[in-house]
């Protein structure tokens, strides 16, 4: 039974990472109704930036803060330069730009930083075993960071006027524009926030899976699955979904399919949710006029 409890807790810890990436995906979806396929690669690049700062001798949390801010800027820049020109183009064009972005960012990361696996430090260390050895300090710390990020995002959207403006811009761009909200910039802001959240997720996952250019590919899929379970337009749902996928993946890996088919579990979840309940558990059912 101890093994089972450990699987669940380890699942919650990895689920925290999925939850943050899922949150980043939902952020972009809320702001722009897009799902960014390059989210994982962008997060990996951010983590590499943080890694080179830590290597250069900056204290961990300074590097952390600088990376989050830099990632925010990168996100805004990507929206301004790549997404804005094709705003009104068909979906195929958007998917194409995402794939292009994935290729460029992913390969540039490998080109600049090399393909060797690197060790990334964890800021959380403990002197003794926690909760009877059930959970590592890093697992506990990264889960806490995820929850802090979620709370911040929630407070931002709920209680700041900027958050309200962003929600308005996503909900009804035309009316939002009429009351003086700069809708275009709200979209860019959404991309920036998503990139920043992705960076946090990358830095939290890197000590666990080790840092290499393809580190996030699998994680991105689990995050998609998590976001879909919770409902792609619901930040809280995405976080719950992310945790659920983490636990599910760990249990399936340990008891059902073995570790080799873990990605297929994500695929099965994605297809299952989309076919059975496309709006997710907490999402709104969207009907559209034709």
């Amino acid at each position: 039974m101890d093994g089972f409890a450990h699987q669940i807790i380890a699942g919650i810890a990895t689920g925290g990472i999925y939850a943050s990436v899922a949150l980043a995906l939902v952020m972009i979806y809320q702001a722009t109704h897009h799902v960014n396929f390059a989210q994982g690669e962008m997060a990996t690049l951010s983590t590499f930036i943080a890694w080179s700062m830590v290597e250069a001798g900056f204290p961990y949390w300074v590097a952390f803060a600088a990376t989050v801010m830099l990632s925010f800027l990168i996100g805004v820049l990507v929206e301004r330069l790549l997404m804005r020109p094709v705003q009104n183009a068909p979906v195929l064009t958007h998917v194409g730009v995402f794939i292009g972005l994935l290729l460029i960012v992913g390969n540039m990361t490998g080109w600049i930083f090399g393909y060797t696996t690197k060790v990334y430090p964890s800021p959380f260390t403990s002197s003794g075993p926690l909760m009877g050895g059930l959970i590592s300090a890093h697992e506990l710390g990264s889960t806490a960071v995820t929850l802090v990020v979620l709370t911040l995002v929630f407070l931002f959207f709920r209680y700041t006027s900027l958050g309200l403006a962003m929600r308005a811009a996503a909900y009804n761009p035309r009316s939002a524009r009429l009351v003086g909200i700069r809708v275009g910039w709200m979209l860019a802001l959404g991309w920036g926030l998503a990139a920043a959240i992705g960076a946090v997720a990358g830095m939290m996952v890197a000590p666990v899976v080790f840092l290499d250019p393809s580190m996030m590919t699998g994680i991105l899929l689990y995050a998609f699955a998590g976001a879909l379970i919770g409902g792609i337009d619901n930040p809280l749902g995405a976080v719950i979904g992310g945790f659920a996928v983490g636990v599910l993946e760990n249990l399936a890996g340990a008891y059902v399919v073995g570790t080799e088919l873990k990605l297929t579990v994500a695929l099965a979840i994605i297809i299952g949710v989309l076919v059975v309940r496309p709006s997710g558990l907490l999402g709104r059912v969207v009907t559209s006029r034709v």
Partner: protein
Amino acid sequence: MSASENVAIPGTIPQAVPVRRGMPAWQVALVVLGGLVVAIAPAFVLESFPLFQLTMAVIMGLAVLGLNMVTGFNGQISLGHGAFFALGAYATAILMSHLDWSFWATLPVSAAVCGVVGYGIGFPALRLGGLYLALTTFSLAVAVPQILKHKSIEDWTGGVQGLFLVKPDAPAWMPGALTPDQWMYFVAVGVAGVCFLLCWNLIRGRIGRALMATRDHQTAAEAMGMDTATLKTRAFAVSAIVTGIAGSLSAVAVEFVAPDSFSLMVSITLFVGMVVGGVASILGSLFGGLFVLFVPNIAEAISKAAPGVIYGILLIAFLFILPDGFAGLLRRIAGRLRGRG
């Protein structure tokens, strides 16, 4: 259905309807003859490695055509066509190496398997619009190598090591002694040629117009009496068959299949080939095949990462500047020349 053929639907963007221009018979004959010469000549001019590359380019072109049938003409975005490519390749490889079938005998089986699986995937795809379908097929593409490596089918797939096969020899009745490379080239060109012709026939007819109508305005297409669900699932099946046959060809051309050669990159490569060659263009698929085979080779000389970066940059550049791809560029140039002349 017949009423829908000549009625323009207000509010939709008119798509290029194939105009049948009368071409004198001698011109048609000249074009066909020229095409044959261009297709056959490389086998006797090129060395064996460039010829192999050209063979692969033709095969990739065929795979891109498959993707184009469902994504370009029918508007269902698939980022997972590498899965059908892998399925076709493995079907042929397993039949050839375990059961000693001849390559030709495996083709119908491979096509049937891919068709059934494609049709099956077409059903959940019906419920998923645009981005969601792209996302689901994307995750399919990521999961393919894992599924292929799985222990339960290792006896058949050869696991991580993969399977080795041998190129078919040229039949004895062929004039002159063709090397296996030359024969493989003819096999690829022949099979691809037939598939291109069939797809072209499908697209320029009533079904093709129905596919495009479904893509451009599904509600309007339904209102005109088209069974869009049937059209979409069948488009998926046809597309899977074409890409699967390309996979079969690639298995014998490379003489080897292994899980890691069917990574996400294959699906992305096909997508890039489609956009660069020309979305919803039959001939464009061939340009796409040439592009995805030769550009990475050139780029690889710069760095291991360069092909990906160049793919990405060109993909975005094409979407921004030439959204209808290389085929669209040629069409535009041809139109301008004709206008002047």
